[in-house]
């Protein structure tokens, strides 16, 4: 009985710890990187992209 009460008391503490650690219950949080620390600069961004590869590991060519 004493142990049951002890575990019950630990539940809110555990929930608070999870929330403080950034966890959420039941949802999927988007990945984010930390906010940029440098001021925005003009730059060149290259986006390489594939689509509909459908498991092909070797091209035909």
């Amino acid at each position: 009985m004493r142990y049951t009460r002890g575990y019950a008391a630990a539940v809110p503490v555990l929930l608070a710890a999870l929330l403080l650690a950034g966890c959420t219950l039941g949802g999927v949080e988007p990945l984010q990187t930390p906010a940029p620390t440098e001021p925005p600069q003009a730059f060149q961004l290259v986006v390489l992209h594939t689509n509909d590869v459908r498991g092909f590991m070797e091209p035909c060519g």
Partner: protein
Amino acid sequence: MARRATFIQQVRDQNPYVLLLDAGNALISMEGIGATTEGQAIVEGMNRVGYDAMTLGDQDFRLGIDTLRELIAEAHFPFLSANVYVGNTQTLFAEPYRIVNMAGHRIAIIGVTNKDLVSFLSGGGAEPVLVSEPIQSIRNVLADLAGKADIVIVCSNLGYDQDRELAAQVPGITAIIGGNPGMLMPEPYRDPTYGALIVQAGYQGEWIGKLTLQIDEKGQVTSYQGEAVVLGQEIADDAAIRAWLDTFPTPQPY
């Protein structure tokens, strides 16, 4: 995959800011090691070449929900979809977006999945996933991203026609990396309404798209260039990827 890896590395060697994205339907396969490993080899290959994100395509769900969850857990990159929900809940099946910082800019990459997914998941009891209306889903994500992103890239499994609708109806999108069913676009289309660029790079791994954006300090595109590069025999195999592919016992017929 081996030629793709070589090309990717060449581009990375020449450019400090490179994103590598897949717009969906990479995992499902009817033959070869993709099929025999139920997509596991595909994810491992994508891990090895360092993909930054992949959108869940409608066809990828043919692997089954449980297998897909296992693959998501094995991936070193996020699988994205802003409009696929678990059953009839408000819980998304995957992450809706990720944000990457480059040159002081916050780049949001949003995934969106084709509603055709419903057509082969419905029937036979409760649906394991529910696909919401894609354009409204993107609007919702953009509202959530207000003040959090300077550049927005939608990695779309919707298909070209819906990508055009998205570009014409929703402001705030820098580029749409498209797919489904696999259209070869030799150059980008720029929507006149809000200026979003649309690209797509063929199918079955025979091409890789390269979209080069010149971006000013405000996050605006000042010029762009796009192409679909044929991964032909003139591109040598990456030695490490070739050695890894050769460890699989089944010869690849293609």
